[in-house]
Structures are given as C-alpha cells and as structure tokens.
C-alpha cells in the first residue's frame, strides 16, 4: 500500500547520521566565516608590517635579505624532503604492519593469535613517528609567516611569493599524510579497547555459564584468537582506519584550531552517542547471568563493532571536511600569492604595489574572491575517497562485517523481491509521473517546455540528460511504495544484406535509486540493504527483480541477441554495473551511471561504461578505488540547477541528485549525444514499467 503522503517519516539511524553531517557542514560554514575574519586580520597585519618594513629596508638591506631568502629556500626544500621521506616511511611501516595483520587474519582457517599488547605496541610506534612528523609541519608552515620571508616580499615579490606558496602547499600535504597515519594509529588503539571491552563481556558471560565454558573458543588468556567468524574483527583493525581522524586535524593544524574544533563538533556528537551506546550495551551484557549471558555478550560484541564503524564513518567524514577546508585555504593563499607574483613580474615598476593597490590587499582580496566552499566539499570528498582507498583490499571485510552485524540485529535482510501491481490507480501513477517530469524540466532546462512523454506521462529519453530525468521520474513514482523498473525498447528500420527493411531493436533497462534509508529491510527492495549488499558485490533482490522484468518483457538472450543498456542513478547505477558483470545471457553492451560507486565491479572489457561522478559527491567514492581508464568517467564540479547562482554551494548533501547529473550530462555534449548511447534512443521508443516489492 502507498505510504501516507502527509505523515512525517519516522526518524532513523540514517536521519541521525544525516543530522550529524548537516551539523558538521553548518559548523564548517560558521568556522569558515571565523577563518575569513582571521585571514582578514592577518592580511591587515601583514600589510602594516610590510609598510613599516619598507621604510626601514629601503635604506640598504636588500643584499642581506636576498641572502636570507636563498638560505630559507634551500632549508625549506631540505626540510620538506626530509619530512616527505619520514612520512613515507611511516606510511610504509604502517601499511606493512596493517597488511601483515590482515593477511594473518584472513589466512584461511588457520587461527592466528594477535595479543592486545602486540597491537598496542604497533600503535605506540606509529604515534611516536607521528610525534616526530607533526612539529616538522609547523616548521614548514612557519616559513610562510617568517618575518624575514615577509620582508623579502617587499624587495622580491616574485621569489618571495613563490616561496610562500611552496611552504603552504608543503605544509598542507604533510598535514594530510599525518592525518591518515594518525587515524590509523588512533583507530587501531580504539579497536584494542573495543576487543578488551568485548573480551571482558565474553569472559563474564562464560563465567556466568559455569566457568568452564569457553565462548566459541575465542578468548584465550587475554589474547584474541582471530579465526572463523571473528574475521570481521580484522575489518575493524584495518577498516576502521578511516576512523579517529576527527581527533587529529585539530592538533596537527594549530593555526586553525578553533575552526577545526567547530567542524568536529557535529560528527563528534554522533561518535559520542555511538560509543556511549556501545559501552552501555557491553556493560549490560557483562553483568548478565545464566544462559542469557552468552547471547547478550554476542550482542555486545556486535554492537561494539557496529558502533566502531559508525564512529569511524562519522570521524572520517568530519576529518575529511576539515582537511577540505585546510586544503582550500592553503590553495587559495598559494594561488593568491602566485597571482600577485605574476602581476609583479608583468608590472615591475611597483615594488609592493600592484595594479594600483597594495600587494597585501591584492592578495587578501584574491583570497576572498577565490575561496570556495564548493571546492572545500570537493576536497573533503576526495579525502574520504583517499581514506577508503587506504583500507585497500580490506574494504570488503569492513563492509562484510557491517552487513554481518546488521543481519545479526535483524537488519539488512534482503530476501526476495517479486514483480506485481503498483497498488496505485492508473490516474495516480500518471499524476506522479507528470509531477516528476515537470519538476525535472524546471530544474534541468529552466525554460518553458517539457520532455517528450508517452501517453502515461513517462519521459521518453533522447539523450543522456533526459535519460537521467527518467531516472528521477521512476524514483519519484515508486517512492517508498515500490521499486519502479523501466524498460525502453527502441525500434529502427534498417536495410539488411538483401536490401530489405528490417526492424532493429535495442533495449534500455533503468533501475531506481535508494528511496528507503531504514536499515531494516521492508517492502521496497531499493533501500539501504540493497546499497550495502550491492557495494559489497552481493546479488540483491533488486537486481534479481530487474532480471525478472527483462525476462517478462521478453528481451532476447543468447548469441546475436539485441544490445542492452543498463542504467541508473546511485544504487540504480551500481545495480546496472553489477548486471553487466553478471549478464545472465543478455547482451549488455553499455552501462550508464550517475553518482554510483562502481569502480570495484568487474565489468567485462567489451562493455562500454560511462560514469558521471561529480567531485563533491560522496557516493562514487564510497567503495574507494578508481574507475578503469577504459571507461568514460566524467568528473568535475557538480552542476548548477536552473534558478541557482554561482553563490550556490555544492556539497555532498545536494550534489547527489539525478537532475543535477542530468544538467552535467547536458553540459558534456560528447556524453549527452554519444552515438554509442544515442542508438538506444533512436527511432520509435516505447516505455514499460514494472513494480517490484519484497515478498
């Protein structure tokens, strides 16, 4: 039955996460304003200092300053090289340590014991190395505000500005590396705590059961024997590597500590709730008695690991947003300085005045003009992608653990889906379809008009942009009531070898995105459960329902079968790619996705893949990795909808939208009208919808 249209949706864990993200973003925006104020003050200070220094230095010290400048440049390079080498060393050691731990953990059925003290020793050693690296960052960053270097700007703006920019960029790079390594260390430490907590609970439960019972044989005198079902713990050790970062950036970057703290507050609250919840559950389990105790302890372990992942995700998000701010700040500073240097080079008549304005004011003005919150979002997303990448091949373990734990708690049970009726009248379906098509046109085109539609209001695509409008339409029509699967059939008349006109068929199969974010699987198969399983590489009820629709429609299979294109936005795109990897006899020749995480899906080389992935979108980087070079991946900043302006901030919350991707497609003519894709829209195109729900 259709959901009550007016009833407010029940709050979910996902809503809480989203609230946390929104809080973080809001805090980040507020912090940006504080940062801008601080920058403005700094610019004024620099300007005053330059004016004072100019009068003093005009007398005679140019030679001496040049000497200082040269010395600094050399020293700066040396420090930077040393730091880079040290950081690479840290990362290498860490990767080897993590790699061997995980290899040991995943080595078949062999039981490998990893003691708490082993892991703690590794953590301590990583943090010790980081303690060496952190001050170096301060040294490099300090170069940028070194009084002698600032003085040198007066006498040699070009060289001085280049040195400033190099110092800022080096500091940013090193800080990023430090965050990654420190994250790994912190998370490793937190996992040890997690296991100690779980261990206590298990031992308490075992004692309650009679003392002689070893729970699963997994607790051996303070060491955790990692084998069998405990493999999900390995996912924690490496996987939660993405966690903990939220603690670090503030310490690593002293200059913007206030901002970093503010940015952390949103996600911090989520983490706090998750951790507190886990401790309560674990504590409760630890105090359990009798036969119930073991089950409680199991629940405790599950909750602790799930909470660890939740904390990790929130922490990684927060840290990445902060790093995004830092990178954008440093890049903007560096860019402003480089631009000022260029200006000085072109107009050397003014020593510290350019284009009629003081150099420092020009630099400050450039910063405020070029600092972009949308770029901050893009940086943050790139950082999250990097953190996920850092988990390497263990990402599947992490996700598998999450799914396992969720299923233990009764969530994420996909089951089976079946095709059936929508439960809505034809009139209601047409109203929903019309409403979506009209809204999309207003957002995508911004002018009066409409998409080509059939008699039921379905959008008939003629390019990639309108194909994505159709993707939005099936989402809007199905909503939280059913998964709407759409099949387009294109029929064109062509001459065969005997010069007779024959029909040529091509099929497009369109799959809906995630419409339900409840972790408990309900009637609608395009939900969070499908997301988790699809990203993990598992078959989903949604995918099976799509194949059922293809069979019911009668799309031919086997040799010489007509071409099929699978397509979708977000989850729909992930499913489309997964189907190409397992085509079940269909001749899937083309995949088109938007905002989908598909890099890890093993699509055969002879299938063309076109993927739209906006820089600020978190979803495409969710599984880490990079798309193969042979695919056509369209990146770049998220596009503006009609009615939005350049001041519109593009961030993960609003960029993940089929209509925005439709605009992006329209802006890339080579994609929008790609002949290999357009052949699926040529001639007479008809649309047929199928409605899937879980049994």
């Amino acid at each position: 039955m259709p959901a009550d249209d007016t009833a407010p949706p029940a709050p979910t864990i996902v809503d809480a996460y989203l609230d946390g993200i929104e809080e973080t973003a809001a805090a980040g925006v507020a912090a940006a304003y504080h940062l801008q104020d601080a920058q403005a003050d700094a610019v004024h200070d620099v300007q005053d200092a330059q004016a004072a220094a100019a009068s003093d230095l005009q007398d005679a010290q140019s030679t001496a300053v040049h000497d200082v400048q040269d010395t600094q440049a050399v020293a700066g390079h040396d420090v930077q090289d040393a730091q880079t080498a040290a950081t690479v060393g840290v990362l290498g050691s860490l990767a080897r340590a993590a790699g061997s731990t995980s290899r040991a953990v995943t080595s078949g059925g062999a039981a490998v014991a990893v003691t708490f003290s082993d892991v703690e020793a590794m953590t301590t050693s990583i943090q010790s190395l980081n303690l060496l690296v952190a001050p170096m960052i301060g040294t490099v960053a300090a170069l940028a505000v070194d009084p002698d270097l600032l003085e040198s700007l007066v006498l040699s703006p070009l060289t001085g500005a280049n040195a400033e920019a190099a110092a800022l960029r080096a500091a940013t790079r090193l800080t990023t590396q430090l965050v990654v390594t420190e994250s790994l260390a912190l998370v490793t430490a937190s996992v040890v705590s997690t296991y100690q907590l779980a261990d206590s609970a298990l031992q308490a439960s075992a004692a309650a059961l009679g003392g002689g019972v070893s729970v699963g044989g997994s607790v051996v005198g303070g060491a955790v024997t990692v084998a069998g079902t405990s493999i999900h713990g390995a996912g924690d050790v490496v996987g939660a590597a993405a966690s903990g970062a939220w603690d670090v950036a503030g310490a690593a970057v002293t200059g913007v500590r206030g901002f970093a703290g503010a940015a952390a507050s949103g996600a911090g609250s989520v983490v706090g709730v998750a951790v507190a919840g886990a401790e309560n559950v674990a504590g409760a389990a630890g105090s359990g008695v009798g036969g119930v105790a073991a089950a409680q302890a199991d629940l405790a372990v599950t909750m602790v690991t799930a909470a660890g992942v939740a904390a990790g995700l929130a922490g990684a998000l927060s840290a990445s947003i902060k790093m995004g701010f830092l990178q954008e700040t440093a890049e903007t500073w560096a860019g402003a300085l480089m631009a000022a240097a260029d200006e000085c080079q072109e107009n050397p008549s003014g020593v510290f005045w350019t284009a009629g304005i003081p150099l420092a004011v020009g630099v400050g003005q450039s910063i405020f003009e070029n600092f972009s919150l949308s770029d901050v979002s893009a940086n943050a997303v790139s950082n999250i992608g990097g953190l996920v990448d850092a988990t390497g091949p263990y990402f599947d373990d992490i996700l598998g653990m999450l799914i396992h734990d969720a299923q233990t708690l009764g969530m994420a049970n996909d089951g089976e889906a079946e095709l059936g009726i929508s439960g809505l009248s034809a009139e209601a379906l047409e109203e929903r379809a019309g409403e979506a098509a009209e809204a999309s046109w207003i957002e995508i085109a911004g002018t009066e008009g409409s998409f080509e539609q059939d008699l039921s209001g379905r959008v008939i695509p003629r390019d990639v942009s309108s194909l994505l409008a159709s993707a939005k339409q099936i989402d809007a029509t199905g909503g939280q009531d059913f998964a709407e699967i759409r099949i387009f059939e294109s029929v064109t008349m062509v001459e065969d070898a005997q010069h007779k006109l024959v029909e040529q068929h091509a099929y497009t199969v369109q799959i809906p995105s995630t419409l339900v974010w409840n972790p408990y699987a309900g009637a609608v198969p395009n939900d969070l459960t499908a997301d988790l399983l699809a990203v993990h590489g598992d078959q989903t009820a949604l995918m099976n329902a799509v194949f059922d629709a293809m069979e019911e429609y009668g799309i031919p299979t086997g040799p010489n079968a007509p071409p099929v294109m699978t397509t979708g936005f977000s989850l729909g795109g992930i499913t489309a790619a997964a189907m190409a990897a397992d085509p079940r006899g269909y001749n899937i020749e083309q995949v088109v996705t938007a905002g989908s995480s598909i890099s890890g899906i093993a699509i055969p080389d002879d299938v063309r893949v076109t993927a739209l992935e906006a820089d600020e979108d978190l979803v495409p980087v969710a599984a880490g990795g990079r798309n193969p070079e042979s695919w056509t991946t369209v990146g770049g900043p998220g596009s503006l909808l009609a009615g939005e302006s350049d001041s519109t901030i593009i961030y993960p919350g609003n960029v993940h939208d089929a209509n925005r991707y439709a605009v992006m497609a329209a802006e890339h003519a080579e994609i929008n009208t790609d002949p290999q894709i357009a052949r699926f829209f040529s001639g007479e195109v008809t649309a047929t919808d199928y409605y899937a729900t879980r049994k």
Partner: protein
Amino acid sequence: MGCALIGSDGQSKESADAALLAIPGVSDASVNTRSIRSGFQVETTTTVKISLQTGFEVPRPDVLVNYLLAAAWSTETKEANSTIVVIVSGHPQISVLDALDAGEWTRKSGNPQFAERASVSADEVKGRFGDWPGEVPEMPNGLIVGPTPEPTP
C-alpha cells in the same frame, strides 16, 4: 485581475478542500502534499486539483490558476520546496500551461498533450505570495460560469 487575499496566514487542508469545493461548478477538489527522498534531500510537492462539472466554463483561466496556486500555498500541510502542481479537469478543457503563461509565471513546465496540468517552481510561488504558509486568498467572483445550456435542436 489578480486574486485578493483575506489576510489570515494559512489554512488547514480541510479548510482548503472545502473552499475549493464551494466554487460553483466544482465537483471534486483537493490539496495534497507529497515528499520523496531525492539522493540525500527531501523534495516536497503540493498538488492542487479540481474537477469541473460538465458544461461549466472558465472565463479567465489565469485568474482561476492564480487563485488555486495561492490556495495551495496557504495550505498548512508541508511547505513545498520543489513545485506546485495545478490540475484542472473539465469539459471543455482549459490549458493550465496557457493559463500560467497568461499569469506571467516563468519557471513552469507542462506538456501540451496533458492540457489539464502544469507545474510552477515553488521558489517562484514563494516570490509572489510570500513566505509559506501564504495568506488565504479570497475567491474572486465569476471564476467559473455555467452550466452552458444544451444547444436546442
């Protein structure tokens, strides 16, 4: 000819439905709101829909559509952030899109093959009627006239 406002902010769905049903010649009417998740955001659309009894005509479709938009914007269900959809079905059938044109609405969409319906951007409606919920509009006189007598043989 615009639509006058009564002066009170907002009305319940029941009140809005009743006011629309009170228009002579209207056989069915409703204001409904629907929200869907689009990616990570929630998009809300309000639909105002009336059916005319056969034979009743709309002398000024733009005035009727403006009134319907104002009524929808004043209905306290949930603030639309996507579009306001207007559906007017009857015999003879007016073109809602043409009515929006005449009312000088700019951010709109409608397909000529579905003359009974068209949509306007919620931003534009907000720009014209103010913050949601808008004031309850006063029903203009002569919105719908009829019925037209059957032609005598």
